[in-house]
């Protein structure tokens, strides 16, 4: 039976009605002389970085903080790490905090890597004995065995952050606070970092981090909080919070494009092209040929592109692009690549793109439609993500990812009896 850490210890961090205000000075008195010579009191505005935020981070959970730049995430992180004091409200933690707000922040350039490990360890509240015990794993993890006794000032920036990260995660943290810093180091080191974070998570370490990488938050975090302009907008399971966030970001982006009057009306975010022939609409037809607003995963779908030509056009190419809401291009078929000859069009009409089994998993997709000349260089009309396709769950049980690959599973019995070499997941350690 597995023991739920949270039920044992309760929350690791409790943020209780926390408000944080910073003084924004217009003319800052930084010297005594000014204090005595200027009559008027120092003028400043109060800036509310956080406004009455309350949340609990369960012990042993991985917790993400998301929001746009300047929303107050990092301020909250600094308050949690005890670096700043809340203006009102309180923050309580149970467990020793290891904060990674900047890798290698405590390094002294003239000292060797090893001396800096001791220095950094003691800043994080460790005794020399505890650092000694972790020294081998720190050096090993950083991969800097060769350079550990040279001054860190000769380190490359990559080496610098590797050592910093190694110290923070190998010093047996109880609560680990990370500020958007995993995106450092080379691919191999990054993977090692994630491996290690999973390891810490398994051991019951509470991890709190700020990230702008939403997929990372969704995969790594149990729970998340979304902060916007200092206010807690949403808090709960990471999946749901990220979805809420994306939905609002998309909406505001659409609003912005509309306000800026991009494209030629009809709400397109960007519409460009010569206009000799235009896409007038996109219709989705279900298996029975009836127009539909929501397609079904795994079933037949016809995408009908309606056009209006101002003049006869020779050899036009019709194209579509399917995007996820997060902006990932899933596929971009066009009639040229698919060797579909459309010799000459004039007036109005339509072109169909037929999918026998829609491979998209249930979600909402944004679709672009375009018409270009045969060289694909001259764009007649390009409507970037102007259309929305909702895909409902169908017969296929696939729910992960974006597309259904449609493969089949089979078992060959005991793998050791197989003649063919099996593919192993490569060990990263």
């Amino acid at each position, binding site marked *: 039976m597995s023991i739920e850490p949270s039920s044992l210890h309760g929350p690791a961090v409790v943020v209780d009605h926390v408000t944080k205000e*910073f003084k924004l000075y217009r003319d800052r*008195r*930084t*010297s*005594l*002389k000014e*204090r005595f010579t200027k009559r008027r009191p120092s003028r400043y505005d109060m800036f509310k970085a956080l406004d009455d935020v309350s949340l609990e981070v369960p012990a042993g959970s991985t917790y993400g903080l998301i929001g746009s730049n300047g929303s107050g995430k990092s301020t909250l992180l600094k308050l949690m*790490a*005890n*670096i*700043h*004091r809340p203006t009102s409200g309180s923050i309580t933690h149970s467990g020793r*905090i290891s*904060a990674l*707000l*900047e890798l290698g*922040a*405590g390094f*002294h350039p*003239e*000292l060797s890597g090893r*001396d800096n490990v*001791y*220095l950094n*360890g*003691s*800043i*994080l*509240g*460790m*005794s*020399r004995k505890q650092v000694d015990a972790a020294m081998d794993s720190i050096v090993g993890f950083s991969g800097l065995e060769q350079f550990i006794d040279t*001054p860190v000032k000769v380190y490359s920036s990559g080496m610098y952050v590797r050592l910093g990260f190694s110290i923070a995660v190998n010093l047996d943290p109880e609560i680990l606070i990370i500020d958007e810093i995993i995106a450092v180091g080379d691919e191999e080191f990054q993977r090692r970092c994630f491996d290690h974070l999973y390891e810490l998570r398994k051991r019951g370490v509470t991890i709190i981090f700020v990230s702008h990488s939403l997929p990372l938050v969704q995969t790594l975090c149990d729970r998340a909080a979304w902060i916007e302009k200092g206010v807690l907008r949403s808090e709960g399971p990471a999946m749901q919070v990220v979805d809420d966030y994306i939905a609002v970001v998309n909406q505001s982006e659409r609003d912005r494009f509309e306000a800026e009057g991009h494209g030629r009306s009809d709400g397109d975010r960007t519409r460009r092209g010569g206009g000799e022939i235009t896409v007038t609409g996109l219709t989705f037809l279900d298996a029975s040929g009836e127009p539909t607003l929501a397609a079904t995963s795994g079933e037949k779908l016809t995408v009908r592109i309606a056009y209006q030509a101002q003049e006869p056009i020779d050899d036009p190419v019709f194209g579509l692009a399917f995007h996820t809401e997060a902006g990932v291009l899933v596929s971009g078929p066009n009639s040229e690549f698919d060797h579909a000859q459309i010799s000459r069009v004039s007036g109005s009409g339509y072109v169909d793109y037929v999918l026998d089994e829609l491979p998209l998993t249930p979600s909402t997709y944004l679709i672009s439609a375009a018409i270009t000349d045969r060289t694909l260089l001259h764009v007649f009309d390009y409507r970037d993500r102007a259309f929305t396709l909702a895909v409902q769950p169908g017969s296929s049980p696939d729910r992960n990812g974006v597309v259904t690959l449609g493969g089949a599973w089979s078992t060959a019995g005991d793998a050791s009896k197989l003649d063919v070499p099996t593919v192993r997941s490569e060990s990263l350690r």
Partner: protein
Amino acid sequence: MAEIWQYRGLIGNFASRELKSKYKHSVLGWAWSLINPAATLLVYAVVFSVIFKASPPPAQNGMTAYVLYLFIGLVAWNFFNNVVTGGMASLIGAGPLLKKIYFPAYAPVIGNAFSAMVQTLIESAVLLVVLSAVGNAEWTFIFVPFILALLLIFASGIGLLFALFNVYYRDVGYLVGVVLQMVFYATPVIWPPSELAGRTHGALALHIISVNPLFQYVEGMRDALWTGQAPSLSRWGWMVLAAAVSIAVGMVVFIRGSRDVSEEL
């Protein structure tokens, strides 16, 4: 207090970081820690014993070598001076770090005080060797560590106060420089108090000047190292009281005032 003990490793590391980085990549390395005070000593000795003809009271063995008399005073003064001025620089220097990681803000200041202590111990060792060589060794040498410990506490309290003020008002540093220079001449480092005693109103002036706690620490050192007598009870009383008041006020004000120091740095 418990927190200071918990962060003793950090304080120690700040001290060793200061010491290690100070003389790294200099050809003479640690020798610099002696060359600087030696140069000061030489200049003062020449100016005051040759030009101004200062004559200290005779030492326990009867010698009146002004340069050694001055040496004792300078060791005590340099210690105080390094703790106070270095403390201000160390807190400003720890600023970027304090914005990234939580640790008590007094740690770099106290760490600096200990690194100054190490420097002073080296100077003291040289001093003891020289004094023994000229035949002025006395059992009262054992008082030196106690006097230095009290001076460390006294200077740390003052250092904490100035370090904190300096964060909020950066010209405190310059002001402290001016004030320290005046205090230097108000303390019998380069002049023997006996010179004053014989002048008109000398006794009164001496009374006023001896209120300065540094007067007591410097003269305490001279008692133990020069005249070879135990410092008087009233002198001990002054030294203990000054140390206790300084560290108490310094700590309380610093801890109250440093809660938002990470925003001001």
